[in-house]
């Protein structure tokens, strides 16, 4: 990564010039040139990125993306200085043909003047004609409180907002409430996705496949309850709500143990008058579904981020689950 250049004012033209200068310098070692940007990612931090450990997951995800998708990354956070400050940097990673896959990075530390948080500060920096993704990688409740005004002012600029409802100390009601507020204040102008929902796909997928053979489909009306060992509270809740939503009735769910899905999980679905359906996965990624065994690679935050920035389609089922959550909270 290049040393960040600190710019005295949040002047889009000066920032663009600095980006060009840094891009030329960073791309110099790559004999086959550099790839072009394919989207802008605006990261709204609610944690102080400089605080110890606060940026590990964000940086790990970006590192995974680096080398796969060239993009402009704009990070905004609330600082404590009187005036808003801005830094510009860049980093590249060679692909297999020694073409640089680069990030153009702009970091805005919004000061007491509130300039950096205003959509007018970052909106001119997004690349026109390319998708714009917003990402709130920290606790959602705090982020929503901090950044909803900024989102509201630039709702038309954003194609998709990505959150991770498992991050942060908020409870389920706070998360659902925050998502509801964002959607309401931005008039549903953009897609909303949740990393926890995507991580939990393994649960939904395996449950769906377990009941897919013709002889199993008949058991679906007799599904009584579900119990999950593993996963975060939100991942478990999203799964139980999904099951209820898909079956059109409340299926009681018990979250028996909390831990990352990637550390392994066991899901038991009880069926009236039939054997329980058991699905399990170990930390190494070996999957068991009834008598079948296979492998499963748990996605890292980086892989989830990659999948999210490659997808611009509304997930109707996720919408249904959120609506159920809104109605019940």
């Amino acid at each position: 990564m290049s040393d960040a250049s600190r710019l005295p004012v949040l002047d889009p033209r000066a920032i663009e010039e600095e980006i060009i200068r840094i891009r030329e310098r960073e791309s110099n070692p790559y004999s086959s040139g550099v790839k072009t940007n394919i989207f802008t990612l605006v990261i709204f931090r609610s944690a102080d990125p400089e605080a110890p450990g606060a940026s590990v997951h964000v940086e790990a995800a970006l590192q995974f993306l680096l080398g796969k998708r060239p993009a402009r990354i704009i990070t905004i956070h609330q600082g404590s200085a009187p005036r808003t400050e801005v830094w510009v940097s860049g980093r590249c990673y060679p692909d297999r043909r020694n073409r640089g896959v680069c990030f153009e990075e702009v970091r805005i530390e919004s000061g007491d003047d509130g300039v950096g948080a205003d959509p007018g500060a970052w909106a001119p920096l997004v690349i026109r004609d390319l998708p714009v993704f917003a990402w709130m990688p920290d606790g959602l409740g705090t982020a929503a409180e901090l950044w909803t005004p900024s989102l509201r002012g630039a709702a038309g600029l954003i194609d998709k907002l990505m959150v991770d409802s498992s991050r942060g100390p908020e409870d389920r009601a706070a998360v659902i409430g925050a998502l509801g507020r964002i959607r309401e204040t931005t008039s549903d102008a953009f897609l909303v996705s949740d990393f926890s929902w995507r991580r939990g796909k393994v649960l939904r997928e395996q449950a769906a496949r377990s009941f897919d053979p013709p002889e199993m489909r008949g058991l679906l009306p007799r599904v009584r309850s579900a119990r999950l060992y593993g996963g975060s509270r939100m991942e478990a809740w999203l799964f139980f709500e999904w099951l209820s939503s898909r079956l059109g009735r409340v299926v009681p769910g018990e979250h028996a143990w909390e831990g990352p899905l990637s550390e392994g999980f066991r899901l038991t679905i009880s069926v009236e008058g039939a054997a329980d359906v058991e699905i399990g996965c170990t930390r190494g990624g070996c999957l068991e579904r009834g008598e079948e065994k296979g492998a499963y690679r748990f996605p890292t935050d980086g892989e989830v981020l990659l999948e999210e920035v490659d997808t611009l389609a509304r997930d109707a089922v996720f919408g249904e689950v959120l609506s159920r959550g809104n109605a019940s909270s």
Partner: protein
Amino acid sequence: MLENPLMAGLGLPREPRPLTLVIFGASGDLTRRKLVPALFSLYLKGSIPGVRVVGFARRDWDTQKFRALVRGWLDSDDTPSASAEVKDAFASGVGFIKSSFEEAAGFGQIATDFARPANRVFYLATPPDSYHTIVEQLRTSGLSSQNGGFSRIIVEKPIGRDLQSARALNEQIARAFPEEQIYRIDHYLGKETVQNIMVMRFGNGIFEPVWNNRYVDHVQITMAETLGVGTRGGYYETAGAVRDMMQNHMLQLLSLVAMEPPVDLDANSIHEEKVKVLKSIAPIAGQRVATETVRGQYEKGIVEGVEVPGYRQETGVDPESTTETFAALRVYLESWRWAGVPFLLRTGKRLSRRTTEITLHFKRPPLLLFAERKPGATPPNELTFRIQPQEGITIGFNSKIPGPTTEMRTVNMDFSYGSAFGEELPEAYERLLLDAMLGDSTLYMRKDEVDSAWRFITEIINGWKESGRPAVSPYRAGSSGPDAAAALLGDPGRRWRRL
């Protein structure tokens, strides 16, 4: 059948029903380099949880030995990375049958030792001369019948060496397996960029309106290799460039680029359209081979900085050989869309650059406003699909050179597949194997495609044999092929694309 509401919105890739995949020729190079890495990649993605892999070979191995070998292959660079635990789990699931293809007992063992899952896919990863024996054994042992589960067979190219032998092979396989159970593989069709041809054509609105003889002057399809015949001299002597590349890969590319939009994306709809193209090819027979084809053979030269021998000096090659290592054809399609548009096909070994591409050369504007003073200064537009390497699409168009005049030059609008995506493209075999397990034959060749392609190619081969013309033109290794190929261009304004 009851719907499964849990499946809604998951967008899950289809998962094959539990099955046993038997690989004949499990000790061979294809199994090690392509099939096992592809299967492991599918395993890692969770795409084949109910698939049991069984190797079948005459080598003096047992299951433990085969598992150890497979486990070792998973550590190679060609194989996706994974934890040792996952690799162990995959390797410990494979089975092995030691048997020659002539022994009925070996085939009996498939039915007894690997009775479950009863669905079976047989992969012939063997030299073609074993196909007959294996297929016959599968038939007599009852393994080709679909009692209690499906039974499919995947057949590698070459499917015959001319129309007659291809038909004989197809008929023989058909005695054991009905057409819908046969999967004839052309690994080119599994390549992402080949599949992208259809997406480009039918997923965008801007290309199809100009995709016809009103706007296209001619089409060039090139498959150039820098490699020589290597250790395959013996085989190549009986094949040549036309059998080795034209009959399968190049005619498949031709059919994809020239086909009409299918009514659906199901296998049959696509096969139907491809077959129509192959059937519409105007035959090149008799004396026409002298004017519509060119054949060449490489002599010693420098390729990629290394001095290489001529074809006749290669191991296993007759010093007087007239086998072609280069072939170029001028092909016309007798269809409403393409009437009068030449399709110029060329393929060769030991050429200056390795490249596979398809280029549509468009007609010049009807009024050459800007070329009045400099005839020829308005190069025609070109649209190129780069299949390999540097997969992508380039559109060449003319732009004004800055300054007080209206002089112009050609510039490129370039989409490199890798310009948006940094990761490796999946191996062709991965997609093809999964499709066969799922029962989707879209990316495989149907019997009538093979038949039509061989009919066309066999007439050329016979024409060469009967007339001895055109003579095999020598070309220097590391060059663009024989100069004689220029004769196929016809119009003096046309040029072969630089290699």
